[in-house]
């Protein structure tokens, strides 16, 4: 499993990275712009990501814009929406409801922060990523 972690906070990023690198390469991006560049470069190299963990509230480019751009890029590569990278949106508990409404069509799962290992592993198994 090849993962891209998109998160502006160092500690939250470190926690996800330390868990996910046990299952394969775990790259990081600190904002939406970096994330879109990384997804694009990986597709061009024929080494697409299997999973993107995407924070919503970030500087430069927020998660929502990044999410739309990632799906657009996949579209230009002729990737069917159902065959695209799995995207788990990460968000604080108080925003889950708004986020769930806004992102329904574009992402695969929501993870409430702070990240709980058991919940994360459960989602990974659900999508047969591990």
């Amino acid at each position, binding site marked *: 499993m090849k993962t891209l972690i998109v998160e502006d*906070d160092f500690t*939250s990023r470190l926690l996800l990275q330390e868990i996910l690198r046990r299952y394969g390469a775990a790259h990081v991006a600190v904002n939406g712009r970096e994330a879109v560049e990384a997804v694009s470069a990986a597709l061009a190299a024929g080494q697409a990501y299997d999973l993107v963990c995407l924070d919503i509230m970030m500087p430069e480019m927020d998660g929502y814009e990044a999410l739309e751009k990632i799906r657009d890029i996949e579209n230009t590569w002729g990737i069917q929406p159902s065959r695209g990278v799995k995207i788990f949106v990460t968000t*604080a508990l108080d925003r889950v409801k708004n986020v769930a409404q806004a992102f329904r069509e574009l992402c695969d799962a929501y993870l409430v922060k*702070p*990240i709980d290992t058991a919940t994360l592993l459960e989602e990974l198994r659900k999508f047969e990523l591990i």
Partner: protein
Amino acid sequence: MALAILEKLGCRADAVADGTEALASLRSIPYDLVLMDCQMPEMNGYEAAALIRNPKSGVPNPQIPIVALTAHALKGDREKCLAAGMNDYISKPVESGELEAVLGKWLSPEGENQHAAPIPETNSCRSVPATISAAVFDEGAFIDRLMGDRELAGTVVDGFLEDMPKQLATLEQHVAAGEIGAAGRQAHRIKGAAASVSGTVLENVALEIDQDARAGDLASVRARVRELSRQFRLTRQAMENFRKSAQARNRTRS
């Protein structure tokens, strides 16, 4: 605070961080009384009290007197504590006289309480309470969230301690420059970092700064940023203790 008063009163006391630790201590050491903070994260005082009272909990004396410590001076609180099986309650901040009175009531063999177990006569000090306070670092909750992986916990705590001074400095710069929007976003980031490592108090103060910043209250943001730095020092101390005990455990093992 409670510990200092207990010491002055000539009591031996141990502090534990959460309900899980409290149960573990009660199983192995014969305490005479429990002082229970009700506002603990994860397992609150009411749940912890109910577990202690459960005959299956493995605590040798499930009827040990439990005195609640609560920040809310609300009327219904006393009832809530009693309903959870606790014997009495005192409000925070703890005052020496009040604590002494309540200890006298529940630790004296002649006390009015008929439910408390007899106090061993050999125990001349009368009380060896376990105190529980809301943790700046909720180690138990953190390790549980990482499925018991202490090594991972240590790595993430180390990263947090290295990074946080930089994040606090950035916040202070935004505040000094009067950039309230940027200060709010930075506080939000600090809140996320603190939550990741179960730095409960730090998380709460950062959240308040974020909210004050949204409300445009720069004076309040300023005051809370000073509080945030103070709480970070306490959090760091608790985390460094956690790291030291982890290292000691590793040495014993190897």
